[in-house]
């Protein structure tokens, strides 16, 4: 997941709480199995809490890359 380029990106920089996880869950629904979604955000709570809990509920593995002030939150759609 770290090396592979994401198939789709979601830019929610500057947005705060319900938005990142709502947009991500909407986008993930439209994606195919095996694809990676990259969520760009600078909202710490989204990285710490809401996006991980979204992934845990869906059972999707994820990883976080820190990029300066931004986070790249990559989610692999598995099923």
């Amino acid at each position, binding site marked *: 997941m770290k090396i592979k380029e994401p198939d789709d990106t979601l830019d929610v*920089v500057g947005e705060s709480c319900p938005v990142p996880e709502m947009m991500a869950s909407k986008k993930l629904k439209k994606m195919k199995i095996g694809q990676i979604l990259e969520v760009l955000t600078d909202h710490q709570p989204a990285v710490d809490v809401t996006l991980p809990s979204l992934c845990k509920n869906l059972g999707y593995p994820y990883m976080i890359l820190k990029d300066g002030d931004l986070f790249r939150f990559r989610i692999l759609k598995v099923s």
Partner: protein
Amino acid sequence: MATPSMILQPVFSETWAVIFGLFGLSGFILGWVAQRGNYCFINAMTSIFTTKSLERFGALLLLFGLTALGTGILTAFGVVPAVDQYFYNYFAGWYILVGSFIFGFGAAMAGGCNLSMLYRASSGYVQNWIELFGMMIGTYVFAVAIWPFQSYTMQAGILSTTSGGYVEYLPYLLFHSTSSLAVYVTTFIVALPLILLGVYFQWRTRNRWGKSLGGSTPGLPGIRALGSPGIPTPAETSSGLRLKQDVKDMLLLRKPYGTNLSTIILALDMIFVFLVGAGYTFNYLVITSSDGGRFFEYILMPLGINLFTNTPWFNDSLPIVDPSTLMVVMLCVGAFSASYLSGDFKIRIPKDKKRLVIGFLGGMLVGIGVRMALGCNVGLMWTNFGQLGYDGYIFLLGMLGGVYLAVKVQERL
């Protein structure tokens, strides 16, 4: 049986300066902890519908339960007279349900309840500044357009109780008494289900996470593979060491507070205010009357416009200052300090400008909703659980409905 007293008497002898100061301190703690714990009532509710996670909603119920337990026990053991618990119970009525629905919808659209709006605005989220401004306008719209009608129904008792206080105090409703025993028993009737339900929701969600991870991702060793070096992977260290490290990280502001830690501190903060303000003033944490109404009034004062002289609601509901004013100002200072010291502070403007418009409109709905409901998620819902009333349940129901609608609408946008 004699009617319960409605006379407040100072419980502890403090000067007004001390009360204002301690309320300011409680606001600081509220802002600091909410910021560090990313405490968001709206998020707790949206996550029920978006990610099917009940973890944060469970924490919310736990917060209400612990608050009710704390204030109830203090009252039952006579530390604080019962009158201080029910004196500021509001009128219940149609407007709480309607208002909380509008509030929930607006807040979930705009991205912040009254608490998270303020601490995020202080952490540099422009979206929430605009929401705050929208809320001020919404309060004005409410004052002019809705309040005259609403106060008429309140006085006439149309779908409304005509007075608050002990009339809505659950010990009085259940046992027709405000004696220590009645309060004691009611405290447990209110607090225990909330606490147990909260713990159960959290347990269930965590359990499901464990299962879904074990089942669907066999080849992956650690789900949380952090990209950047320098952050230790938690799996390597032993649990005792990890706890010590966690505490250190939290004190050094490197790590946010966990949901349940924040819950406990916030419940204690509410109980602290309950004690400090007893006999003097509204002795609960409260935000709304200040951020939407009072600050709008204050901003206009230097321009020579005094809303309190002629505008409905502003001229009969809002003292010029009260301890909650300083509480809200210090909430912002606390949230700013926490975000600044942790390095999180940054002016953030959403890229999608549509969000700013939604923020403003959502803020207006928040302003209208909270005023109709006579308080927000803190000053009415959370507070009312501490008051052992039933308005909190109505508010919770309405807010959940509003949030659900907002989630559905957001999915379409």
